[in-house]
């Protein structure tokens, strides 16, 4: 096989092709090979489900608190976000047992340890440290046009982020 690969191509082997309507031929050379490999790699990457971060991270989730349940003693509820996952399972600490009911069916921000799995970009579970209700704004953004008028645009330099 190696000998076959090392042999020069036959005189009658395909070296280029033309596309209807295009004057210039597409030549089978090193550049074409590199581009073809790049396109193939892209297609492969697109066809494979991404593997997301798997592990635990400190953070917060927001949404409506529903399905409060302690039947099995697991101090469970779910947060239903407006967007993204359908629901996120949460577990509240023992000392919140008497207080958690006040948050039922309210918009809340739950902070704690978020557990992620490789199958989803969203947290699958939250071990709650804290919870707070999120109030509606006294004045909506619609009515705040020009709130920062006159202030200079903040200069945000992201260029060094993620560049190591």
């Amino acid at each position: 096989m190696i000998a076959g690969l090392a042999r020069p191509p036959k005189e009658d082997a395909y070296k280029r092709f033309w596309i209807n309507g295009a004057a210039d031929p597409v030549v089978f050379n090193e550049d074409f090979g590199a581009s073809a490999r790049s396109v193939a790699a892209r297609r492969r990457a697109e066809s494979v489900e991404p593997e997301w971060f798997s592990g635990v991270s400190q953070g917060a989730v927001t949404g409506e608190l529903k399905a409060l349940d302690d039947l099995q003693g697991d101090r469970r509820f779910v947060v239903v976000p407006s967007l993204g996952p359908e629901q996120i399972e949460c577990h509240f600490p023992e000392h919140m047992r008497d207080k958690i009911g006040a948050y039922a069916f309210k918009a809340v921000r739950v902070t704690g340890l978020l557990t992620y799995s490789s199958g989803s970009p969203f947290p699958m579970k939250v071990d709650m440290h804290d919870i707070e209700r999120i109030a509606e704004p006294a004045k909506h953004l619609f009515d705040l046009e020009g709130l920062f008028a006159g202030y200079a645009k903040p200069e945000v330099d992201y260029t060094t982020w993620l560049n190591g």
Partner: protein
Amino acid sequence: MFYEHLNREPVTATKRRAVRELLAENKAKKNIITTSVITDLEVLPEKLAPEHADKEAAYRGQFDGVHMVSVEISSNVLMLAREIRGRYYRPPPEGGGYAKMMDLGDAIHLATAALLGVDAFHTRDDTDEKTKIPLVSLYEWAGEDRLCGRYDLKIVSPESDQGELDDIP
């Protein structure tokens, strides 16, 4: 878009009206507006006068977590943002010129929107000068119709059919 509204940027009447319409719908709880938490960096003045502290509170108070949602940066947002930057990177052309690399802030905004599966991503950013990569015409620029070939994310610059009456000189 937040900056445009909060700083009353000089834009066309049709663009201003489009933003007002979106916000009016949001006020009536008919849509959900979501943005990355990095919008705070892009919107809040660097040096806010002490007597204007209530303005920062008014801005932060917008995010009720239901109809106006600020999304934190997670490992997965960063993972996708890196992929987006790598995907759309273009080396400098032979004979000179600029390499093209997407602004990290833009990549984080796109990644956040793509992961959440929003209906539309709103931006005015469409310049391809120097190192810039346009956003509104990203797919046309890149010769594809989905973000990273995987995410159906509609990227638009909202514009209304007609302008606002108070913008007519």
